[in-house]
Structure formats: C-alpha cells, structure tokens
C-alpha cells in the first residue's frame, strides 16, 4: 500500500501539474485536438486498439469481482460455523447427532422466542445436468427453518419455502438459466426419490445462489447420512464469538472447531485467486503492448509536425506549454479508447457463468456485472496509458530546437 503510494506519487504530481497547466497556460489545446482529427485513421486505429485492451481489463475485473462477491457477501460477524477439526470446509466436515444435541443448546448462543438461534445442516454434492448436456457438481444443503432466518440476505422470489418430511426443495433463481431441470413445480430425482421444486430464492449475489436447499432430515435420509456436516449459530454480539470459540474447542465432549462466518467465507474466496492472478497478469502484459502502440502513434504525430511545433515556438509558446499540450493530445487519444473499451465491456454484462471451487468441489454461479465503478476504473486505466505512452513523445516535441524545427521538412 505504502509502496503503491510512493510509486504513484510522481505520477499524481505530474497529473496535477497537467491540470494546472490547462488553466494557467494558454496551451494550444484546440490545435492538438484538431490535429487528432486531421489524422483520423491513425488516431482512430490507436484508440480502437486501446479500447480492446481496456475492454479486456474491465471484463477481467468484473470476473474477479463476481467471484469475490459470491463469497464475501455471505457472512455475518456475529455468526459462527462449527466444523470438525481440520475439515476447513462444510463439505468435508461431519458432526455426529449426539454432539449436535449438546451444541444446539449451548448456553452462549443467542436466543429468541423459539429458542437458541442455531441451525444443524448437512451439505452434499450432487451431479446436475446443465443446459449444454453435461453434468456438473452442485451443492445440496439440508437445513432447518432456523437456517433461513440466520441468512437475512436470502429472499424468497417465487413459491414458498420447503416443508420438512415432504421431500421439497427450493432452488436459486440464478441457477435456473444454466440448469434447465430446475424449473418451479418440476420434480427432481435425488438420492433415489423425487423432490418437488416448490420455490425459488435470491441471495443478493452470495454463494448460496449456487446451492439447492431442502430440509436437513430429508437430505440426510435420502443420502444415507448418519451425521450432520456443520452448525451455523448466531451469538449476542460479534465480540461473543471468541468466547464461544474457546468454550467449544475446550469442551472434551465436542472436540470441534469454530470459525467466524465472515472468516470462513474469506477463506473460500481464495478459490478464485488463480483466475484473478492470471487475469491481472494478462492485463498487465497487454497494457505494455498498448502503451508501445500509443507511443508509436504519438512519435509519428510529433515527427510529422516538426514545422508546426517550430511555428508554435516562434509564436511564443514555451517548452513546458508544448509538453503539456502534446501530453494532453495523447491523453485524449487514449481516453477515447478507454471510453470505447468500457462501452465494449458492457456487452459482457449480465452473462451468467459458473466456475467450481476446487476446495468444495461444487459449482459457483455468478454473473459478469459491469458496474459504473468498473467502467470508471477502465477509463482511469486508459488515462494512465495516455500519460505513460505520451510522455516521451511530448517531451521530445518540447525539446526540438527552434532553428531545426523551422527548417524541418
């Protein structure tokens, strides 16, 4: 962070000077903009190349963001997840019935009119057919009615919640596009019996949108599970989680591990790290290529206008004014590309996709969301390209000796 600030400090200072120059000097900005227009084809092709790179940048950013949102928005700081030691993920974990009985009435849990706020849950993975005819692993979560209230971000969209004992499931609305069998009212074959889809839900982008939900006992019976996977519980306040953690881990009867819910999801987000790192590397490399291209265009623009620059100097424009004006020309060139590219990225908006967490072996759906914030980042990114790509050519333009410039062909 500090290193980043140090590195960007000269950068920001230079940008500030450029903006100041815009106000303070009578720089021949209009002349520069008209020159861009004069060389329409060259300007446009450079802008188009930059637009493509910015487009890739914005799409990769949205991919990374989609992955993070799917996990991070899922947790609450005053809730904790109980797992078997070393299991790390719900899917790996198992808690026997007798231990669950002790856990569910733990004195440290928050209580309301219906008793302690805790949900015993089971998580299994089941193959589901996708729209393209192949199968993928989907998480099936069995939970108690309490489990729904413990996840306030989850909202019923259509139909109703499942009822215990009737083999009913509720599916995420977002999964329906990619999994045609998940239609409301249809039956689903799972664990040797038919399950009716009685509702659809929305979880505001959280990872629950990749899970099929049903009653915990129904799922355990169908999948012949003798033990639960995990328990989700709410405490009085976020500070109480530490105490609960210690109490459970020290309890000789339990031998279980407690993780704060937010920390659990933070750990899950790491599943997206390789994609993020790869995406960032690609954009970094392509940015280099785009900066070279912008430099080439600007050098050509400067070289072709030696005489004009000489005239400007003869008219009384100073070296730093020439520097600022040519730098602005390059920035405008790249900003045009940046705006085009951010617009281009909008085509990816809303495309539903999925990837699988290798830690939990199940599908995570998310949508490419091109937000105004991401588009602004793309435009800012093109500004940086304009600064870097234009600096050397602009510097050169400002240093051309007056006599030579007047002579120049």
């Amino acid at each position, binding site marked *: 962070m500090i290193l980043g600030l140090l590195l960007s400090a000269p950068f920001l200072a230079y940008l500030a000077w450029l903006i100041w120059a815009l106000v303070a000097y009578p720089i021949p900005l209009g002349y520069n903009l008209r020159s861009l227009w004069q060389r329409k084809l060259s300007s446009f092709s450079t802008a188009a*190349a930059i637009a493509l790179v910015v487009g*890739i940048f914005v799409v990769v950013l949205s991919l990374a963001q989609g992955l993070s949102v799917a996990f991070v928005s899922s947790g609450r700081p005053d809730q904790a997840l109980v797992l078997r030691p070393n299991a790390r993920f719900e899917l790996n974990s198992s808690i026997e019935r007798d231990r669950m009985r002790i856990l569910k009435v733990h004195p440290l849990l928050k209580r309301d009119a219906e008793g302690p706020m805790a949900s015993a849950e089971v998580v299994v*993975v089941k*193959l589901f057919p996708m729209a393209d005819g192949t199968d993928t692993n989907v998480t099936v979560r069995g939970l108690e009615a309490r489990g729904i209230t413990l996840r306030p971000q989850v909202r019923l969209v259509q139909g109703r919640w499942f009822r215990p004992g009737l083999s009913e499931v509720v599916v995420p609305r977002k999964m329906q596009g990619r999994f045609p069998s998940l239609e409301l009212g249809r039956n689903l074959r799972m664990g040797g019996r038919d399950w009716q889809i009685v509702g659809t839900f929305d979880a505001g982008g959280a990872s629950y949108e990749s899970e099929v939900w049903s009653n915990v006992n129904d799922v355990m019976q169908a999948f*012949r599970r003798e033990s639960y996977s995990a328990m989700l519980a709410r405490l009085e306040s976020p500070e109480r989680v530490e105490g609960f953690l210690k109490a459970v881990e020290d309890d000789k009867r339990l031998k279980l591990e407690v993780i704060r819910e937010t920390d659990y999801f933070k750990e899950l987000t790491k599943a997206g790290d390789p994609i993020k790192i790869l995406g960032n590397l*690609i954009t970094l490399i*392509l940015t280099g290529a785009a900066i070279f291209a912008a430099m*080439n265009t600007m050098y050509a623009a400067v070289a072709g206008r030696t005489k004009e620059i000489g005239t400007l100097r003869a008219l009384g424009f100073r070296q730093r004014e020439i520097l600022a004006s040519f730098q602005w020309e390059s920035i405008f060139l790249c900003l045009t590309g940046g705006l085009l590219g951010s617009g281009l990225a909008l085509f990816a908006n809303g495309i539903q996709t999925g990837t699988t967490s290798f830690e939990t072996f199940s599908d995570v759906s998310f949508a490419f969301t091109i937000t105004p914030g991401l588009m602004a980042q793309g435009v800012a990114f093109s500004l940086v390209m304009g600064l870097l790509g234009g600096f050397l050519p602009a510097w050169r333009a400002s240093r051309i000796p007056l006599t030579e410039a007047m002579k120049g062909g």
Partner: protein
Amino acid sequence: MRWLALIWKSLMRSKRRTLLIVGSLILSVFTVAVLQSLLTTLNAVTNNPNSSNRLVVRHKSGLTQMLPRSYEAYLRQQSEVETVCALQWFGGYYQDPRNFFANFASDETTLFQTFREEFGAAGISEAQIKDYLRDGAGCIVGESLAKKNGWKVGDVVPLTGTIFPINPRLTIRLIYKSPKPSDENVLHFHYKVLEEGVPRMKGLVGSFWVRTHRPEDIPRFIERVDRHYANSAYETLTETENAFNLAFVKMLGNIGAIIQGITAAVVVAILIVTGNTMATAIRERTTEIAVFRAMGFSAGRVLGLLLFEGVLLVGVGGCLGVLVANLAAGAVRASLGMAMPFFADFAILPDTVLACLAGAMAIGLLATFIPAYAATRRPITEGLRAVG
C-alpha cells in the same frame, strides 16, 4: 537475398518505431501463446491416450457418496475386465493446507497393474513394490512431489486429513517416475489405513478404477454395470476415465470461451496496431516509392518488397514472443500447477508455436497489404511531387 539489405534498411529507417512495434508484438504474441497453451493443456487432460482402457465406477449421486466395496467382486467377474482398483480421494495435506497435492487411499494389490502406464515408465523394481506391500503404513510418492518436499525413501510423512478425521503417519517405501509431471505430484497409501481408521468408511469406497482388456469393450461394459445396479440402494455411474476427468476440467467454467474471447480481441488489436504502423512507415516513403517506380521497378515488385517488410517485422516479433513464452512455461507450471493440478503439465507445444507464428505472418501480410497497395497504385508523378 539481394532485397534483404534494402528491406533491413527500410526497417531501420526509424529504429525507435521498429523497436516499439516489435515490443508490442512480443507482449501480444506471448499472451496469446500462453493462453492457448492453457487450453491445449486442459484438452490433453481429457484426451489421455494412456487411459483409453480405463473406466471409473462411482455413486450416481456424486463424489461425496460411497459405494460398497463388495461391488468389486461383481466387476471382476466381467469378462472384459483385466483388473479393478478401489480408490478413495483422501484430501489430506502435509504441514500447510495451501501445500496442495493429490493423495489417495488405494488398493495396493492392483494399483500398479491398473495404472501401468503411469508407474511403469521408469522400471520400478519388484523389491521396492514388495517393500510397499509389506508395510501397511507405507506410502508411495511421485518424484517431483518428493523433490519439492525433500523426501527420501524411509522418511515418515504425517498427513492431516480434511475429509476424514484421521492423521496417518506414512513411511515412504517407493519414489516413482512418471511420463507426465502431473502424475508425479501424487501420494498413494494402503486402503486399509482409511478403512480401519474411519468407522464410517468400513466396507465402503468412493470409486473403482477398472482396466479392461480392449477399449472396444468399454461401451458394453458401462451399459451392463449401470443396469445391474439400477434401482439398488447404491446406484452406479460408470464412465471412461477421460469423461470423468472432463467433469473436473468443466469445473473451471467456460474458461475456453473467455480465452478465445481474449485471443480474438488481441488479434484484432495487433492487426490494427501493425496496420497503423506500416501505414505510417509507407506514408513517410511516398517519394522514395515513386523514385523506385521511376527507376523501373514494377508496381508488383514494390508491393512485394513492402509486404515482405511487414511480414518480417511481425515475424520477428512473433518469434521473440513465442520464445519468451517458452522461457516462461516453467514459471507457469510452477505457479498455476500448484493451484490446479492439471496445469502441472503446462507446456508450449510445437503446434501452438506454429499456429502463433502462422497467425502472426498472416496478420503482417493483411496489415501491410492495404497501405502498400494504395501506395503502389499512386501515380508516380504525384508521388514525386509529394512532400514527405
């Protein structure tokens, strides 16, 4: 050859421009070569020629459900079957959970026969195999995995179980070599360790890996097994090893579409940038080209020279880009291979190199043609008068 000097001179006319465009090309071709190789690596996972004889039998509901080990007897009785190996993903880690590698509890008696290609490559001695079979708490590891952790035969490896509540301490009895790097990043130990350590696993296993005598037998076998266990308490899903692996590759999502999208965008960008550069280079030489024509060079020859110049420029950039990609392949293998086991086999294959170079040449030709053609069509008198 006589023209090469002339073309070289033209390219060196503006060294800075040539350098910048070559730099731009190197970075772009590098990106495309690496991305396309990621894709071919993934495709190779599902087209493994070694596994054409092998099948995987598992529970129809998914990876977390187990099958009874007694199914093995039925599978063995089928006439197509050469051998059956019960195998369970253990999912343990050594010291640090981030330190990922594949580890399995497997039937030690049939393991070597079932995965003959993977183990047989560099002659493991019978004595070493016997050592492993004799030691119930023994394990075998691939060479690259052993090297990474500094393990030798005789060392004890404590594994921490994530899926199963046991932490076995295993003695390395054998370190094997394998033709593919990904197969060397694996640890196997005796199935009994799991079955005896975890009460709920008694008599159960995650999957059976079946080796048939001939690949032609596979479809009939699949059909028969799945029908045999249909509507039983434990229904089976039988598929070829390649199909089984495909499911894991698909787990990455439509990475193929993303890679092809980026590749297309990069190709268009290079085309535009190269075209722009060549147009500038040719415009600068309007007078020069007119002089050439006036001296008696035909329009076709001038066009040929310009095209050659463009192709050479892009070709140099492409070659260097592919070269850099090759140098970086090791780094990709080490970094991505750690996160996702498939990428341990990452390599820039000759096919990808050729495709990248051919693509680059085509881009050079296409990008130069339009400005070059326009330049040679220009009347000589006009060209001579032009102020460059």
